[in-house]
């Protein structure tokens, strides 16, 4: 049966038997880079179209419906438009940093992709600190945003960047704590081990209440970290025109826009991996017939299904809730999410020590 694992192994073996080790390694790097860039562009097209359709139906509209059947080529047309648009640089901007910022944001998003497992044994780099690596790299993308805000030489950009910085730095805490909850339960930071530990049930089922609380906090925190509504006050249109990317146009703007959607995808993959079992099919205990039936669905489909479910939930948030004020935002984090996730972590640790989880 052709699975992603088999294809990857076949290519790997073929490269190493045909070329010498260095050349084969370089070729693999190239293939991975092309795949990542391809995945990013496809994701950008799919997610933006999905967002527009979801928002339309939630607002009792139809959404894009002219370009192609049901409007599915709308985002392709938009991308073409953005490509041929002039990329302007403001006169008094710090031109070097202004042009560098979108690439930093994009590179950070690409790096986070490395330890994620997309299917059974299909992973770029199964590093033994996988989850920590993800948290570490995701703190780099805030630098890109701060850089964009500063280099634009525009007060709206600067304000947006500062808000965004404060928001990401504070919500990283509770996102990290809820990730640690799962790390405590699965006793590993390695993504593949975390997924293996869910072979007899996903953590959200096995971990009872602490896992569910951690999941809810994780979803809220990553919604804030990706600067999406109801936490989109970094680019609040009604106050700051567009926040940190006010001055960007053309392809550089497109990179920021793409990075936003890719980041949503990434955090949803992480959420699916930690709480919903990653590529692990729905298993219940040792009920073999049911488990085997579930195994017939390919593992990559499981992961993408879960991920898109989470993406849909985050979009659902965006098109339902109104935007928070900055003080409400910080209150929510420091007075509610952080204490709750700390107590929750304590609970989860007690549970892991006493072996109360399944």
């Amino acid at each position, binding site marked *: 049966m052709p699975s992603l694992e088999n294809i990857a192994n076949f290519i790997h073996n073929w490269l190493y038997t045909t070329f010498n080790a260095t050349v084969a390694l370089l070729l693999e790097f190239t293939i991975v880079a092309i795949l990542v860039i391809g995945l990013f562009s496809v994701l950008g097209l799919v997610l933006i179209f999905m967002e527009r359709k979801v928002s339309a*139906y*939630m*607002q*009792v509209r139809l959404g894009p419906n002219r370009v192609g059947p049901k409007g599915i080529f709308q985002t392709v047309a938009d991308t073409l438009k953005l490509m041929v648009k002039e990329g302007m640089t403001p006169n008094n901007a710090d031109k070097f940093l202004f042009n560098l910022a979108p690439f930093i944001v994009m590179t950070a998003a690409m790096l986070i992709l490395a330890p994620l497992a997309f299917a059974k044994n299909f992973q770029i780099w199964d590093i033994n600190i996988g989850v920590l690596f993800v948290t570490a790299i995701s703190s780099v993308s805030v630098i890109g945003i701060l850089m964009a805000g500063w280099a634009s030489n525009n007060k709206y950009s600067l304000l947006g960047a500062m808000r965004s910085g404060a928001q990401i730095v504070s919500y990283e805490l509770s996102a990290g704590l809820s990730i640690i909850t799962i790390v405590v339960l699965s006793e590993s930071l390695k993504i593949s081990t975390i997924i293996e530990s869910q072979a007899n049930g996903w953590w959200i089922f096995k971990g009872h209440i602490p896992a569910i609380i951690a999941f809810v906090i994780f979803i809220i925190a990553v919604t804030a970290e990706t600067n999406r509504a109801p936490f989109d006050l970094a680019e609040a249109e009604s106050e700051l025109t567009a926040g940190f990317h006010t001055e960007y146009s053309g392809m550089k703007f497109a990179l920021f826009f793409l990075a936003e959607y890719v980041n949503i995808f990434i955090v949803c993959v992480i959420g699916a991996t930690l709480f919903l079992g990653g590529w692990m099919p729905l298993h219940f205990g040792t009920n073999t017939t049911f488990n085997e039936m579930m195994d017939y669905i390919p593992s990559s489909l499981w992961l993408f299904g879960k991920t898109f479910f989470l993406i849909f939930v985050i979009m*659902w*948030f965006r098109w*339902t*809730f109104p935007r928070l004020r900055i003080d409400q935002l910080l209150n929510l984090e420091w007075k509610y999410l952080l204490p709750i996730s700390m107590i929750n972590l304590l609970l989860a640790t007690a549970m892991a020590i006493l072996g109360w989880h399944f």
Partner: protein
Amino acid sequence: MFLKEYIQDIYGAVKSLLIGMRRTGYYFTNHKEIITQQYPDNKATLNLSERFRGEVVMIHDENNEHACTGCTACELACPNATIKIITQFDISPDGKKKKALNKFVYHLDLCTMCNLCIVACPTDAIKMANTFEHSVFDRSKLTKILNNPDSKIRAGIE
């Protein structure tokens, strides 16, 4: 107690957010409430809401009679001089002179569809119509005379 309020806060917040999400979830799954009109495609079956304000028209019945007495209440009510009423004096059968409408001039290009003239009319002679395809090549075509030629006031309206 502090802890009780804290938990109540969280409970209330989560509950209200879930109610909001149920609403949008309902809209997402039930497409019959979609209000988008795909305009040029569905010209024949266009479904405009009753209160949509397209332009001012004068109501005429089948005998070509209207209810306008020429009182100029609408002209006075109009905030930007869209309506100009030209009156004449009719001679009634018993020899009395009576003020009556000659021309109801309506400048569509000045109208903001504010509905004040309709509210001001004491005899409900004018109303807002649903038509909206008003583009013309010549501005003078936007100046309209609302009463039909040879129409007259309905009997019994003062």
